[in-house]
């Protein structure tokens, strides 16, 4: 799991049975003491593998939306919740956004660079077993989580995804891995659950629509090569339509086939494009 704190933005991403939405009220309160007011909120997730294990308010998307609606101040009046489907019923993308009037004005009336950023949220399942095995620690290795993480970063090639990034990594005992990459004002993050039967890895990064698209393609390719998943979804949040168009080409060149593509528009967040892929071998 990861937390990123910018001067006016917080991103928190947690897995397992964590109760992420319970962070909203304390964060709003702490921010208020610093003279900061909430102006937008975006909550996203895929389909849980074990939905019945999730505690309230994560018991269903409906419960999550009710909880969000209740937590958020009334100035965030532009709200939308949507479940973006795929051809496979087991993969869908859950999105809730809320924004205040001021942010909506900015989003609609100001030119770039205010609308230049995009976010990739990538979820991968059925990881290649050889690749997944690299995220296990040897029993009683006596290493710290920091050292184990560093070794996993090197062994798997994760360190080469963005060689300019400063990496903060952690290897869990007996298995599992988390990494945050920081490169100037941009973050990236990877989380891995390697256990056979419910193996999972995620990759998330931000970029600019003005970045060289070939660099974006190379990053996507490196991520796929690290995990070699049988199933993958990529959610791209961006105001521009250009970025996501290079995604399918990059991923398909590595043996995955695009099975579905869904687009929806959200207040102040822009377009969310949800693409799913499965390995051709399936």
């Amino acid at each position, binding site marked *: *799991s*990861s*937390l*990123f*704190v*910018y*001067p*006016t*933005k*917080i*991103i*928190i*991403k*947690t*897995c*397992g*049975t*964590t*109760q*992420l*939405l*319970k*962070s*909203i009220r*304390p*964060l709003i309160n*702490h921010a208020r003491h*610093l*003279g*900061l*007011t*909430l*102006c*937008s*909120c975006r909550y996203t*997730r895929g*389909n*849980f*593998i*074990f939905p019945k*294990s999730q505690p309230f308010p*994560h018991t269903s998307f409906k419960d999550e939306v009710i909880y969000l609606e209740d937590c958020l101040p009334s100035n965030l009046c532009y709200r939308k919740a949507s479940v973006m489907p795929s051809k496979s019923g087991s993969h869908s993308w859950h999105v809730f956004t809320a924004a205040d009037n*001021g*942010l909506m004005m900015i989003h609609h009336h100001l030119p770039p660079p205010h609308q230049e950023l995009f976010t990739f949220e990538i*979820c991968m399942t059925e990881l290649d077993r050889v690749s997944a095995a690299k995220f296990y620690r040897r029993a009683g290795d006596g290493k710290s989580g*920091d050292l184990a993480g560093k070794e996993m970063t090197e062994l798997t090639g994760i360190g080469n995804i963005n060689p300019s990034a*400063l990496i*903060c*990594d952690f290897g869990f005992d007996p298995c599992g891995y*988390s*990494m*945050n990459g*920081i490169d*100037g004002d941009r*973050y990236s993050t990877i*989380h891995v*659950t390697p*256990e056979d039967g*419910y193996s999972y890895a*995620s990759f998330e990064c931000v970029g600019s629509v003005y970045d060289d698209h070939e660099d974006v393609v190379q990053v996507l390719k490196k991520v796929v090569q690290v995990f070699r998943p049988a199933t993958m979804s990529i959610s791209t949040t961006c105001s521009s339509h250009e970025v996501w168009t290079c995604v399918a080409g990059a991923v398909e060149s590595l043996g995955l086939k695009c099975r579905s593509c869904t687009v929806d528009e959200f207040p102040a967040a822009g377009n969310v494009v949800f693409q799913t892929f499965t390995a051709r071998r399936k």
Partner: protein
Amino acid sequence: MAVSGFEGFEKRLELHFFGDDPEEVMGLRLLNFDSLQQVLHAVQCTVVSAVGNHYFDSYVLSE
């Protein structure tokens, strides 16, 4: 019913704020570690590693 394993799929939350004081450039980065821990306690995780730069702070969390 299948026995539950560790849930890999994450929940992700992004919050944006605006400030009254345009001179204040650190904003949320002024939140002290105890305040962050209090927030993370509500979520049920803790900080296991941290790093920051000129632009932002990054924390790897348990779970």
